[in-house]
């Protein structure tokens, strides 16, 4: 019987294609992941089962662990109007240049009477060193800010405003801080706002869990 000669084939596979795929995927993942904006304030929000995503552009009230309150006006189109409105209603006496400078700052976390002197400084005060907006019942300046916000949004869709009014707070902050912020909202007749939370899973066996399963049947 003649011997059949099987040609020996090399076992090495060309890895170039696989390498391409691997790095393509790597680049995709790196570029597709949204970078978290650097946060000047360390805040660990509480968690809830709510699954609605928080809007990116928002009027955000942040409060830290030690009870300091900050305001972040994320809606660039209205930011100028809000600041100008506050300047006139509270007689801050800010010059146009100072208004422009204030518009550029990210976090607002100073009492109104310190705003002008802080704007005169060369360097911006880091958010962590600010005193926060006073929210005491006698001098609730957050309420003035929110008044200007409502003025700036007057005549527009109030549903939209409700959607972007956010409160983000550190879970370990004491309840009275939150209560004073709620008071500031109430003074401006705002009864609906949203709270930024981390999402958590619906606990197994709970009522909502059962309801959602019923709905899916």
């Amino acid at each position: 019987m003649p011997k059949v000669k099987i040609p020996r084939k090399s076992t090495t596979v060309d890895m170039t294609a696989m390498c391409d795929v691997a790095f393509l995927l790597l680049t995709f993942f790196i570029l597709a992941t949204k970078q978290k904006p650097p946060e000047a304030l360390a805040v660990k929000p509480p968690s809830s089962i709510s699954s609605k995503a928080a809007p990116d552009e928002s009027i955000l009230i942040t409060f830290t662990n030690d009870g300091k309150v900050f305001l972040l006006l994320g809606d660039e189109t209205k930011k100028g109007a809000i600041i100008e409105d506050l300047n006139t209603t509270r007689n801050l006496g800010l010059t146009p240049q100072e208004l422009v400078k204030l518009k550029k700052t990210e976090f607002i976390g100073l009492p109104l009477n310190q705003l002008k002197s802080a704007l005169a400084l060369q360097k911006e005060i880091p958010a962590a060193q600010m005193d926060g907006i006073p929210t005491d019942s006698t001098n609730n300046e957050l309420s003035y800010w929110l008044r200007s916000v409502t003025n700036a949004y007057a005549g527009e869709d109030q549903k939209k405003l409700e959607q972007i009014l956010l409160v983000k707070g550190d879970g370990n902050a004491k309840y009275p801080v939150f209560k004073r912020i709620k008071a500031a909202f109430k003074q401006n007749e705002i009864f609906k706002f949203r709270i930024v939370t981390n999402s958590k899973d619906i606990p197994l066996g709970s009522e909502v869990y059962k309801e959602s399963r019923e709905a899916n049947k």
Partner: protein
Amino acid sequence: MAELDTSGGGHKAGPGVKKPKKLSTRVDLTPMVDLGFLLITFFVFTTTMSQATAMNMNEPKDDPEQQLKVKNSGAMTILLGKGNQVYYYFGELVPETISQEFKSTSFKGIRQIIVDKKKATPIGDLMYLIKSDSTSTFNNSIDILDEMSISAVPPGHYAEVEITPVERMLIQKTEEANGIK
């Protein structure tokens, strides 16, 4: 200037001189593929999908004329205190039975109590009153609102109410007795 001899045909290969072997230009890419996939796995596992969510918050209007009347039989008061403690009682506090009625639990325990109350009460009468002491944290007040949605309590059947001095005193006494700091 230095010059490279690129002619290559400088000398004829003699009979004893071996032709230099042509080296393959192929590089083994396996380690590179390994590295690529390793990085992918690393990135996939380390990125946390932390999309911040938002919870709706509805505050009641402070209108004394629209005060809701709550039936005693359907009311349950939940109090939040220090150290993630939860206190609760049903209906109204009567001085004689305070010690039996005023109970303490934790966030783990309150879920079952909320569900039991919901099942035992006609839905029209059901009302949860949430009162936060000044020693409780923001976490606590969000957690209890979250418990309401976890137990599918319809909106309008729970409300945040100002704590009374009697309740504050009761919390303090219970805290002292239980040694909660």
